[in-house]
């Protein structure tokens, strides 16, 4: 019997810097599998965010550009407009995409830029040590909301998939998670669709992935999974929000 499970070619053979229980690694793997399956590694350019995934290029074995905080969709626009033959994706966190970079993602999506965004929503700023994000849940404690997010003061968490779906142009918007195997298969399918639509030159595509941050949530990896199911998935509903066909 041959090998049934191996490292995708689009992933590098290297140590991870992500924390135990963090889902960035799973998401990286799914994206890499999709890149392999579509056979696009050598014409793919990734755009790394500023956040825990800033070093994404240490894991993906393809060309990469590193954006400033929030600006990945503008960079991807620049790459894709001048080289439409390349496959371009951004990989962004919720602070990156939904706070400082909200303008860039909305406009890139609304122009229908033909790249793919993988949006990792872990309801917190991971890299800078657990500050409140626009996606932080009501009452959720962070270092800048030590008594819990006060929605009277800072509003309700932003639902990015729904928000972008309200625009007419963007055509494939989906929200998934990878906290359990049953979700992982669906997430993979969504990512595959997102890249396929790009390869077919159809549309802008965004897959939001509800993720965990045990370190900054102050939980064990297992508790983080339970907390995600009970608190995040009830607010951030999974499913396809828009499809082009």
């Amino acid at each position: 019997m041959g090998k049934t499970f191996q490292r995708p070619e689009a992933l590098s053979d290297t140590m991870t810097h992500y924390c135990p229980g963090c889902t960035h690694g799973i998401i990286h793997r799914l994206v890499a599998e999709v890149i392999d399956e579509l056979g696009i590694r050598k014409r793919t350019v990734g755009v790394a965010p500023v956040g825990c995934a800033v070093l994404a290029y240490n894991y993906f074995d393809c060309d990469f550009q590193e954006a400033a905080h929030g600006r990945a969709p503008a960079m991807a626009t620049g790459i894709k407009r001048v080289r439409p033959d390349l496959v371009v994706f951004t990989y962004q966190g919720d602070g990156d995409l939904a706070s400082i970079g909200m303008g860039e993602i909305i406009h890139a999506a609304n122009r229908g830029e033909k790249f793919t965004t993988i949006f990792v929503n872990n309801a917190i700023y991971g890299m800078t040590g657990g500050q409140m994000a626009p996606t932080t849940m009501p009452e959720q404690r962070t270092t800048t909301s030590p008594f819990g997010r006060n929605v009277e003061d800072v509003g309700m968490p932003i639902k990015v998939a729904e928000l972008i779906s309200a625009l007419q142009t963007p055509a494939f918007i989906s929200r998934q998670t990878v906290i359990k195997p049953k979700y992982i298969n669906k997430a993979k399918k969504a990512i595959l669709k997102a890249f396929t639509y790009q390869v077919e030159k159809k549309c802008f595509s965004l897959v939001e992935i509800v993720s965990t941050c045990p370190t900054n949530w102050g939980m064990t990896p297992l508790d983080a999974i339970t907390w995600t199911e009970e608190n995040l998935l009830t607010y951030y509903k999974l499913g396809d929000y828009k499809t082009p066909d």
Partner: protein
Amino acid sequence: MGKVLMKGNEAIGEAAIRAGCLNYFAYPITPQSEVAEYLTKRMPEVGGVFLQGESEVAVAYMIFGAAGAGERVFTTSSSPGISLMSEGISYIAGAQCPAVFVNIMRGGPGLGGILPSQADYNQATKGIGHGDCRMLVMAPASVQEAVEMVMNAFPLAEKYRNPVMILGDGLIGQMMEPVEFPDHLKTEPSNKDDWASNGMDHRKRSERNLVRSLFLDPTALNDNNLQLKAKYDQMKKEEVRSESYNSDTDYKVLIVSYGTMSRVCRTAIDALKEEGIDVAMVRPQTVFPFPEQAVRDAAQKESCKQVISIEMSMGQMVEDVERSVRGGKPVHWFGKCGGDVPTPEEVVDVVKSLIN
């Protein structure tokens, strides 16, 4: 091709195309929106890319992405817009990518005004972004020179893999003058396969290319900064350009002035000559690197008693003039801020007040 009468902003757009730059991203702002209005028609004719971005912040990163993919790319803006682009310019310099930025300056600070100014001198030459980053900055004094500088900017940006800026004032953008376009540039962005993330299957080498400015390891960061410094030092050796006027006389006063302001000074120098007063001028064509040697040599001439920096700002270039003269002769400043361009008569009066 003979001479054509063209508005500066349109000529700048056409010059970029003739330099082989077929990618333009921009956000409208007075007094340079005509570049975008021109290129929105011209780029499709030549199979190029035109995109109006959602902000100057985004535009700077569209430029970064395109430059990082190894394609010639440029943008144009004016003072407040350049402030928004400065974050991106720092990243582009850090990641060592070539790109061309045109700043058709208007008065500031804040919204300032929409009339010509040279008040972004310090920003352009000394503080374009955070970190140890610098740009090669060229300052045209005519539409013709703007065309030539834009066309030279692309190979220079590629030579140094660094942003290059054309620093013009509102008059350069708005005025109509006859221009003659040099032949199309034949050069291609060189050696981009060594560094651009233009897709692995595009290149002979099998390694991937990373375009980035993050160096968490202090040694690597230091190495990157040493590479940048070496480039800036090389610019100081190889790219300094200036022009002198009436300098073969026994002038008593040396004017240092650039851009539109230098043309006013030229008129004043001619008028003074008719009155028997010789005044010379050094006109920096590059403001970074600054023509220190040319200014110092001109100031050192025995007949020269006074040096004056005349600029459309509240005294910015004068610091570079002082630095160049190094205390050898007294250095003065005269200028006005945006909109109110000093007249030749005012310059004549100021110069006379120095020698009486």
